[in-house]
């Protein structure tokens, strides 16, 4: 019983320390990550270097085969109409 009670207190201490350490690390690594990603040029990322001559089309995207600019236009119009509370999950081409 006494042994167990001291165990219970041990768990209290270890537990709270762990929680604090983990969330501290969450904060710290989060901040580091944000800084790190900032240093990577955003433009570099946009020009993703994937195999160029094959516009990557997983069978899923396949279906979508809709001009991205058009989608942007749609989204914009939806934003106007819904005042930003709506989004389109899918716009599909039909085969």
């Amino acid at each position, binding site marked *: 019983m006494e042994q167990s009670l001291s165990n*219970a207190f041990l768990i209290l201490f270890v537990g709270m320390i762990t929680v604090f350490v*983990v969330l501290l690390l969450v904060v710290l690594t989060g901040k580091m990550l944000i800084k790190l990603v900032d240093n990577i040029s955003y433009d570099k990322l946009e020009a993703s270097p994937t195999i160029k001559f094959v516009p990557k089309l997983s069978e899923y995207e396949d279906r979508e085969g809709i001009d991205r600019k058009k989608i942007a236009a749609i989204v914009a119009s939806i934003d106007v109409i819904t005042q930003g509370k709506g989004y389109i999950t899918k716009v599909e081409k039909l085969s």
Partner: protein
Amino acid sequence: MEILEKLYEMTAIGELINSPGTLLMIAISFLLLYLGIYKKYEPLLLVPIAFGVLLANLPGGNMNVIQATAENGIEHMTILEIAKNHGIMNMLYYTLIKTGLLPPLIFMGVGAMTDFGPMLRNLRLAFFGAAAQIGIFSVLISAFLLGFSLKQAGALGIIGGADGPTAIYTSIILAPELLGPIAIAAYSYMALVPVIIPLVVRFTITKKELKINMKQQEKLFPKKVKIKNLKLVKIIFPIVLATLVAILVPSSVPLVGMLLFGNLIKEIGNETNRLFKAASETIMNTATIFLGLTVGATMTAITFLNQETLLIVVGGFLAFAISIMGGIFAVKIYNVFSKKKINPLIGATGLSAVPMASRVANEIALEHDPRNHILQYAMSSNISGVIGSAVAAGVLISFLS
């Protein structure tokens, strides 16, 4: 005459007369249905749990979950043997719940529906999700002193994590015999967050503190870092976080790892949209139905109508209240040492119960100052509270199982 006899034997009327506790359980199921449907307390869970209670307690339906013992040997039965001997509800319970499968799957869905954006934009506040786990461990000690075994006490304490799947996962491993009341308590108090938080706040936060305006503080002490490429940060963050947590608290990996996997496939976007849909809808919705029904089906008169259930109800409430206080006082202490003040309500939301707690905190802040919107700040500690309680669960499991 023989016909009437046979008729009577077929019905459950005899059994109902013999075990009046059953009637009480049916009343409890009606109460839970009332709370879930009319009062809208977490209906997605309370309705199936309540219906599970109803189905399980109507005798003769063979829909009640029975505890595995050495004598009945359920643990070593094949699926078909369980189904044949004890019905489909036990089959579902012993393959989906008792194996610990559904809570991680639900965490995957929760991850797929969680946006770490508000937390990343106010990372500092995430720290207060830690203090709000104190209720878990305080109640562990209290429950142990009241006569619960350490394992049971841990399962009871985890109610203070204010997170349904975490509570269920921990109970399954530490004290499956208490699963029903713990799940009910956890989801009920989560639904009662709009009552519990204001109650605790009234006794612990001054009016002056409640008026601390986070946006104003931001302007007084501006942050240095701004996130230029939030999308990329959001993709890398769950990967790094999973690695980190897994190294520090391996026993929380089934929960936290799946949460972060779900979040990753959401953040990647179109390329993994099929996985996202599976995690956030197909698997999530199906798991919710089966979790609810089977957890409800564990609550029969014998296992539920006893003193322990009462202590769980009381202990669960204490765990909630102490956790909220923990978060609040952590902010108060911080404010003593820092010029940039934080509204203590941000600590209260460290409890988790996303996003209800944040909404409640926001409402309270607005009541005292109609321009003081703290929702997005509250969401930071609110989300980190989920990670906090999953980590706490990992510690409990690692020490007690």
